């Protein structure tokens, strides 16, 4: 794999510590930004997706507190990243989300109930990755980053115009897998954008304990790719920066690392205890930087949304939340036999035998061939007489 390096040298300069911002905290436009602002329709779409996404997030949090989800890692406060990133993708592009990124999946159009399959404890993933061009939500930190590189490599081999957006946390950047993926991406000139949601915390550990670099965007330098810092509570800026990076990637200029400065307002998950490691004071300033308020202010000020439009968005959020509540109330237990169906493309004899054991147990029938039985795992052709023979000897 030779790298086709036609990237302008300027893209490899030290990133600025000052994040790119398009909209200021009171909703005013920031002049002189290095990326063009999204058009009004896109801004409205961003707002809508944030409003709906937050409502979804609040609903999921409530369900977790009620014990109807096994666990829920909220992205409350990070909606600009979730939505700004997901909406910058073209339909053929792929999204690689983590456990934290339910809202980005909802924004990408995945059925919210299918998004919750993992966290509800029904199965490890609920949606069809190929249909939605969304990889499964990834828990082992930073491990999905190389998947994105491989996937886009395959796309290029097949002549498809596909880019990928990898979502990762600040903490995940410490993993060896992040390094290896960044390096592969740069070497293969892969059309992959790595969006680091620097929400300041990795569970209980602040980002200054993850890295001594001036910014996480500085990491890009070591791979020969551009690093950019963006205001992660400014949906317009996140969208614009991701959009530009995707465009660069698509035309052969290679990958980019984007560090989005944001904040995890909620606990790590509903079972976390943040009072043990951070003061409430710390979050206050971040509440004032609310991404929804900010974009609302801009769109209102510029006459791009009115009360009716805002009410419609809120309404859509309520509908979605109600739908999630209702559909989750129908608590169908997952099919026990699915445990064995997908381990391999075809079910090996030994697994079929274990499935039969479980089937018998569930029917309350005598346990004729359980795990560990003499004969367990025996292929069909031998199974007939095995048990009797053993008895008779």
């Amino acid at each position, binding site marked *: 794999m030779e790298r086709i390096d036609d990237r302008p040298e300027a893209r490899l300069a030290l990133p600025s510590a000052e994040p790119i911002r398009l909209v200021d905290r009171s909703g005013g436009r920031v002049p002189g930004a290095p990326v063009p602002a999204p058009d009004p329709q896109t801004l409205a779409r961003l707002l809508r997706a944030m409003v709906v996404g937050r409502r979804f997030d609040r609903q999921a949090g409530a369900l977790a507190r009620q014990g109807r989800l*096994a666990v829920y890692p909220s992205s409350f406060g990070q909606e600009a990243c979730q939505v700004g990133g997901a909406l910058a993708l073209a339909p053929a592009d792929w999204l690689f989300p983590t*456990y934290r990124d339910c809202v980005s999946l909802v924004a990408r159009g995945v059925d919210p109930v299918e998004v919750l399959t993992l966290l509800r404890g029904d199965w490890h993933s609920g949606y069809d990755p190929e249909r939605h061009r969304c990889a499964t939500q990834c828990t082992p930190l930073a491990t999905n980053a190389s998947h994105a590189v491989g996937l886009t490599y395959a796309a290029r081999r097949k002549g498809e115009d596909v880019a990928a957006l990898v979502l990762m946390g600040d903490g995940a950047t410490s993993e060896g897998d992040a390094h290896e993926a960044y390096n592969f991406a740069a070497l293969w000139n892969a059309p992959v954008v790595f969006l680091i949601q620097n929400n300041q915390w990795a569970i*209980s*550990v602040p980002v200054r304990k993850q890295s001594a670099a001036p910014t996480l965007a500085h990491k890009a330098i070591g791979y020969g790719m551009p690093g950019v810092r963006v205001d992660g509570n400014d949906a317009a800026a996140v969208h614009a920066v991701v959009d530009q990076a995707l465009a660069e990637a698509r035309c052969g200029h290679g990958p980019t690392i984007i560090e989005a400065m944001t904040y995890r307002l909620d606990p790590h998950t509903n079972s976390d205890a943040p009072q043990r490691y951070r003061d409430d004071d710390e979050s206050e300033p971040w509440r004032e930087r609310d991404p929804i308020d900010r974009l609302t202010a801009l769109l209102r000020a510029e006459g791009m949304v009115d009360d009716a439009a805002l009410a419609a968005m809120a309404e859509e959020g309520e509908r979605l939340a109600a739908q999630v509540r209702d559909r989750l109330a129908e608590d169908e*237990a997952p099919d026990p036999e699915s445990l064995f169906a997908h381990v391999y493309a075809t079910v090996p004899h030994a697994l079929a035998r274990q499935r039969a054991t*479980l089937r018998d147990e569930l029917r309350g029938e*005598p*346990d004729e061939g359980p795990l*560990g*039985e003499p004969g367990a795992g025996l292929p069909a052709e031998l199974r007939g007489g095995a048990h009797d023979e053993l008895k008779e000897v």
Partner: protein
Amino acid sequence: MELSLAQALNRALRDALREDPDVVVYGEDVGPLGGVFRVTDGLTAEFGEERCFDAPIAESGIVGTAIGMAMNGLRPVVEMQFDAFGYPAFQQVVSHLAKMRNRTMGRLGLPVVVRVPYGGGIGGVEHHSDSSEAYYAHTPGLTVVTPAGPADGYSMLRDAIALPDPVIFLEPKRLYWSKAEVGAPARTEALDRAVVRRAGSDVTLLAYGPTVPTALEAAEAAHADGCAVEVVDLRSLAPFDDATVTASVRRTGRAVVVHEASTFGGYGAEVAARVTEQCFHYLEAPVLRVGGFDIPYPPPKLEHLHLPGVDRILDAIARLQWESGWTPGAAPGGPAGAGPALPAARSTS
């Protein structure tokens, strides 16, 4: 005093930090948070950031730096947050931690303890319920142990920290909250011994970690049916305590190994194979294994189907070919003369 397993482990770390200035505790979120299971609760507050601290999220680096510390006289105790998150450190564990003493002809021993919360039953989503003991137990140079209750939790962790060799210390997640009397700082049995938890003359259940309470429950249920089940808590997976186990199985003539991990190539295979080697002519039936299915660990709503429970253990006992020549056991602790009611009661064939 009565403590939960998590509290007993915490107490062990606390006492070790107090008594030995060379002990350091670190890992992901073990500082102010006290670890996701609170095993390191309060240690940073009591001993300072120099003795108990948060590491960046880099498991290989955590084990690698612990190796370096141990090369230079410290006794690091590191935590892998969940067992599946120990895999990134696999190379450091297998190629360095396990081999350094041997490589240096005994000059550099590595007294490192790697704490690994393991197993399921806590409703965790994927990657939070693996049982990785077979990977470690197969690796020469590692000592692999697992307590099944608070008293052993305290004692075995203290012993593990004192050991001059690396220890993979497997903590059964779903027992973290189980409480029992802990005689700290007094110790229970030696780190390398298996312990008979319940005596019985008819069959031996070999269990460890999370399956010990289940095995004891099964023994109680079998007792009601007139079957005297001996339960051995293996405690030390590597090295294996052949003496205790062999003595038991030779006495009962029947054995079942119980663990959570997938059965195929699991630790139970070693137990079954070596018990059979050593007790062949005492065995009335093959040593059976009751383990997890050979599937990725299931999602929370299905895990109860995967985990070996009392019924599956009783079913295995029932299949130990009692028909031919079974005579009621008369061992101490076992009900004598009642006959094998259990198999008859549970089998319709």
